[in-house]
């Protein structure tokens, strides 16, 4: 089963007081490496700061589309990175999330796990 592991920053993504130091990047790299070595990682990435995010609001019946740049303070603005993992159970997903290294250093507030629908659950 697939889970989306969303890493949420305490502050807005990428806008922490301290820039991530090389140690931290190395730690993250080795974490992803472990996921990959275990045959678990399907995709992963870090997001640019929410201030450069774009929100597209869709009005009723698609008659109005409102585009706004900058997501500071908006819902979802705290997502800093994601990993899509292929695991055997919910518990394994939790176990991997718990092992996310030294989350305090980028001011991570929480990790959210969401199970990803697979064909044909969608229909």
């Amino acid at each position, binding site marked *: 089963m697939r889970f989306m592991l969303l890493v949420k920053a305490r502050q807005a993504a990428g806008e922490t007081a301290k820039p991530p130091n090389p140690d931290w990047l190395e730690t993250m790299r080795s974490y992803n490496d472990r996921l990959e*070595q*275990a045959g678990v990682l399907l995709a992963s990435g870090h997001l640019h700061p929410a201030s450069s995010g774009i929100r597209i609001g869709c009005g009723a019946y698609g008659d109005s589309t409102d585009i706004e740049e900058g997501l500071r303070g908006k819902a979802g603005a705290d997502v800093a990175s994601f990993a*899509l993992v292929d695991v*055997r*159970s919910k518990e394994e997903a939790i*176990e991997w999330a718990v092992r996310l290294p030294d989350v305090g250093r980028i001011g991570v507030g929480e990790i959210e796990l969401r199970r990803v629908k*697979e*064909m044909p659950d969608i229909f």
Partner: protein
Amino acid sequence: MTDSRIQRTIDAVWRMESAKIIASLTRMVRDVGLAEDLAQEALIAALERWPVSGVPDNPGAWLMTAAKNRALDLFRRNKLRDRKYEEIGRDLNTRQEEDWDAALDDNIGDDLLRLIFTTCHPVLSTEARVALTLRLLGGLTTDEIASAYLVPEPTVAQRIVRAKRTLAAARVPFELPPKDELAARLSSVLEVIYLMFNEGYSATSGGNWIRPMLCEEALRLGRILARIAPAEPEVHGLVALMEIQASRFKARVGATGEPILLMDQNRVLWDQLHIRRGLAALEQAERIGRPFGPYALQAAIAACHARARQASETDWTRIAALYDALAQVAPSPVVELNRAVALSMAFGPAVGLEIVDGLTEEPSMKNYHLLPSVRGDFLMKLGRKDEACAEFKRAASMTRNSREQELLLKRAAECAES
């Protein structure tokens, strides 16, 4: 945490860590059976301790240390009895604690590779290789393996016990195969993984939930292998083949469980993430720059289908060329039959018929209903209706699948009518 949640967590941790622990222990104690026993004892200790103390921060290291301490106890007890044990015991004693963490990280790739070469060793029967690999590398229980293979649990348990004994009796060293054996040994590993995958894949939907799990285990093992043996094009080829086949997992059976042929599948149901990963693995195989083996060629064929958004967009010329290559590197009557179909799609039924006619004398094809079925199809397309009708009837009499039989008789009737 409730007891049942702790149980499930321990189960998850075991699945994640057991292969690494067994691989590291085997390097140290030089016996895969003993290594597994020690790891199992560590698991039992965890099952006793963790519900009380909670799951430790680094559960893998905890299990490893527990197993190592048991190994040390054992060697202390046996020290006077056996010089070899004494030697290993000394070796274990001199290692520093942190070495174990480091060992888990640094050498783990090599140890896992050694372990998979051991569990897939040619000295074992195919069934034993599959069972031992699922047990030691997948962390599955004998019960789970038994349900996946629809055999009684004691059969699997026996198979595993005997396999471990065989490995010990044959003094199979815990080493990577020497260069001159590497190709043959690797192909044994790939065969085991692909057998596992196909066992799960050929299971019909519903009913037995555990069988598709075999596909997931095989895919996972393939991905791990691609990481620890990245220089082998066939490893990436096998991963690509499994990923692309897995992309069709949900599209290949209908609502009532009937199989749906590739050309008739609803391609919207194909899993695009699997396809992308499959194509990426195939590129990886290409980049190594060595000629494709059977897995990479089959993956390249599967990729042609995966790239076609509609069945009518299929690049049959390329598929025909790939089958020509496959027939060269891995000739077999079944490949030949598939090649005939590909060539007929690319260049017309007459070309296909010529190949199929060469197969009619093949002893292994004597009871293979797809041969007359395919031949009937070519004949029908060529307007030779009477002959086609006879071939469809013959094919119908050879298959035991009633649904297939029905379909073949319908085609025979259509030929007779026109």
